[in-house]
């Protein structure tokens, strides 16, 4: 079939035959474009007024994935933030002013997280921003927060570079991956294991530095890595990697990664008949509910079943507010802690951008679900000397492991 073809290069003199009808349509197209531009402007100026009297809420921004690939984590954060805000406000807020959160969806996409950052920087009522989730979204936004003198609290950013490459305005209460996996190598070795097969997420911001930390420590303490396979969390089928990783018959298996990929890995690892202990995974529903994950061991900062009164109270309150949630994980605990840290800082330094920064530099011993108490090492802008506890997945629940 041949088709008639017209291209504007051949019809540049088209204006001569323009009828009024076409002009109207053309106008419509332009109006549409102009409308969008103006609309954007209108949206952005809506929240420009700032300050705050004695009873106005103190606003914290949240830049996170509400839709898209990482939405799972955005949901978990939001639940914990909302619970924490409720409790804090019931207890009088920040010197009588209630705490409120402004959520913006970034899809953890840098194209959107920079726009979100600018939106928060321009919104003078926001005194601190939580987020973003991934390094690829958080770090590109950092220069904007820095130049806007707005504290970016990457409470979930375990990538050391977030604070190392950042400025005074980037803070985090997440334990760095290096610390976690150095601990794990020591722990595995201390259990008398001599050789491990390893899979790690082949991601720039997380898996690769984490595996490097693990390997360095393993080499140091004499733990043999029979084979290490880089895998991607977006893959679904890990059998080819796994058959290779266990070919050298290691005594145990280590996965450097998250919950969903660990769930897939452990299922397939058992399906190919490997029976050694699985070190890895996360206290996360997809992993806990996987039957093959039973007996997995991780180093945890937060254990849902802990008897510590503060943790038990948090878990109870969380389940009361969200009765459909079977489990509470370190993601919720981390977010819950983060709001408390931010509020403590605002109380100490004042509920302004400058005040919050001052508060972060001074705040000490904030009660915490994850750490017991949080104090910052102001040179790294991370939690000073974080501790981990070995935990084992038993009957779909993580409990402290003393074996």
């Amino acid at each position, binding site marked *: 079939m041949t088709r008639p073809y017209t291209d504007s290069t051949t019809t540049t003199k088209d204006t001569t035959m323009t009828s009024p009808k076409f002009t109207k349509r053309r106008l419509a197209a332009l109006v549409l474009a102009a409308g969008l531009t103006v609309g954007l402007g209108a949206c952005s100026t809506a929240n420009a007024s700032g300050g705050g009297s004695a009873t106005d809420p103190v606003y914290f921004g949240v830049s996170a994935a509400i839709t898209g690939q990482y939405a799972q984590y955005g949901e978990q954060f939001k639940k914990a933030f909302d619970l924490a805000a409720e409790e804090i406000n019931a207890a009088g807020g920040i010197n009588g002013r209630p705490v409120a959160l402004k*959520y913006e969806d970034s899809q953890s996409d840098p194209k959107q997280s920079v726009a979100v950052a*600018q939106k928060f920087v321009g919104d003078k009522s926001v005194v601190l921003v939580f987020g973003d989730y991934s390094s690829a979204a958080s770090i590109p936004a950092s220069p904007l927060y820095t130049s806007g003198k707005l504290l970016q609290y990457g409470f979930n950013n375990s990538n050391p570079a977030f604070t190392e490459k950042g400025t005074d305005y980037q803070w985090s209460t997440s334990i760095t991956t290096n610390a976690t996996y150095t601990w794990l190598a020591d722990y595995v070795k201390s259990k008398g294991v001599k050789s491990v097969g390893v899979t790690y997420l082949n991601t*720039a911001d997380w898996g690769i530095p984490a595996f490097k930390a693990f390997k360095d420590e393993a080499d140091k303490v004499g733990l043999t890595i029979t084979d290490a396979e880089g895998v991607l969390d977006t893959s679904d089928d890990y059998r080819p990697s796994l058959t290779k990783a266990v070919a050298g018959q290691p005594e145990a298996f280590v996965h450097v990664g998250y919950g969903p990929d660990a769930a897939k890995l452990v299922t397939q690892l058992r399906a190919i008949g490997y029976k050694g202990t699985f070190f890895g995974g996360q206290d996360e529903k997809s992993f806990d509910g996987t039957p093959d994950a039973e007996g997995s061991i991780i180093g945890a900062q937060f254990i849902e079943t802990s008897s510590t009164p503060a943790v038990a109270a948090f878990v109870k309150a969380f389940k009361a507010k969200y009765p459909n949630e079977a489990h509470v994980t370190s993601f919720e605990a981390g977010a819950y802690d983060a709001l408390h840290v931010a509020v403590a800082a605002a109380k100490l330094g004042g509920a302004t951008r400058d005040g919050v920064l001052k508060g972060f530099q001074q705040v000490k011993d904030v009660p915490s679900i994850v750490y017991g108490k949080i104090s910052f090492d102001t040179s790294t802008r991370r939690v000073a000397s974080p501790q981990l506890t070995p935990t084992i997945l038993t009957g779909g629940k993580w409990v402290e492991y003393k074996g």
Partner: protein
Amino acid sequence: MFDTLIAGLLRGNVYALGAVGISLVFGVMNVVNFAQFSFFGLGAMLAWLFVAELGWPFWLALPLVLVICGGLGLLINIAVVRPLAKFLPLAAMLSTYAVSQILDNASQIAFTAEFRAFPKVLPTSNFHIGTMRFGTSDLVMLGITAVVMGAMAAFLKYGKTGQAIRATAQDQEAALQMGIPVSLVQHIAFVIASALGGLAGVFIALYVGVANPTSGLNVGMTAFVAATLGGLGSLGGAVIGGFVLGILEAFGIHFFGDSAREIIVFFVLILVLILRPGGFLGKVPLLSTEPLTGTFLGKGRPFTIPRWAWIAAAVVGGILIPVFGDNYLLTTGTQVLIYAVIAAGFTVTAGQAGVLALGQAGPIAIGAYTSALITINLGIPFWVAVPLSGISAAVLTSVLASPIWGVKGHYISIATLGIGTAIVAIIRLVLPQGIYGIPMPSWGDTLLATPVAYYLIDFVALVVTLWVMLRIRRSHLGKVISSVGSDEVAALASGVRVRDYKALAFAISAFFAGIGGSLLAHQYTYIDPTIFTMLMSLLVVTIVIMGGVGLPPGAVIGSVILIGAMELLRFTPELRIVVYGLVLILVVRFRPGGVLVRNA
């Protein structure tokens, strides 16, 4: 070795099911159906709902999933695909993309984004051959696939409807004249394809162990490649393509690691397309223009933009926004402008040369990495690095793409998709760590790191891009490139070296993609491979389709609408993507040729 082979067979099984669905719809409608990808995730989640949540038996859940997916498929075809596919396959393809966005997000709202553990329906490791363990579950999956494929083959060969499907795939118009109810046949094909997508989704969940609403995306992409490998429209080919890919992937991962998976997939694809341009069993398209754009170009005439509109746009974009806009508007503006640069540069490939390349994230990534590396390591200033990045993207992409220009029809789009994905995968392999501290632009000692400075830099880049692109369009060269896109055969007959001009157009587009990548890198100051995704490539394609596929100014409007809309829709965070998809469908419905193209 044997265990890797079994792993490959199991993985190929899922690809084959998906590929058959894609090939079936393509055969009868000439549309690449992105919504098919969503059925994988949806099938998995529905099965999870029925089996894990409601506790229904698996054998009840399975047919129910097929019925629901088939029914949804029918609805999508009636409401969105068929009305557009009749006259504009390109618009239909764009709307299937919108539908897949809506489906994924609706499913996410319904099921939440969480990964769910899928219950063990059948034993998964009760047999073994050598050291490789497998289970009843795997055998049942292979068995079901074999039965379904056998039934499909018999249906297509002997069934009356099956024969009608084949006739429609061969020649739609002839089939219509022979009294075959083509629209009904298309509905049936769509239903079957959607049901197969759902089935593949259930298998993914069974096999992988966990699922979430977006878990079908990667499998979908690979199934799409498998369908192409086999020859689009050929069902036997799709099955072969699926298994070949599954097995090669398994061995590839065994030897080179999981990170090499995408490289393997697309390397195989490109190799096969070079050796057999129509895939294993597909017919080599002899006299084919790029079917998607080819159909489209004759359908409408672009508006001529009057002088006052250019002036108004320049005043608004170059003066009013930078002077009166606040930082949020300016920062959003930088993203709009950079994507407009990339998309405007892309119009020469997509519109004029008629190659709807699907892998622009590749050259964007090359530009970003080049710029980052030479400014950090060699101390080259930003202003020199930007054009160098464009050149580097153009040269490297051209070299990598040089073997594919003999490939014809739809296959060339898919080959470019392969090139783009492979580029990013290679970067991930070579430089897996992100790059930090990419210098911000500066002039003398003044750091130009404010939103308004970024905006103005990007604005100037866009003005230059538009000027160059419009000059190219008006030049003799531009007309020759346009002749390639509008009628390849006529161009060839007139002595135009079609392959070379396609390659040239592609290089020009890669140059501007590289510029855009460089601008992004210096604004973000951090890049890693996760930024340059398939979604980025699709965004570039949607922008040019939205504006009018061959029109550089259209790319600007497309960019304003598509990136601006994402920000405008912030008032409804949960429904943002769903509304976005609806807007996309509406625009395509009422302006199928693009905003700047009047309807035929």
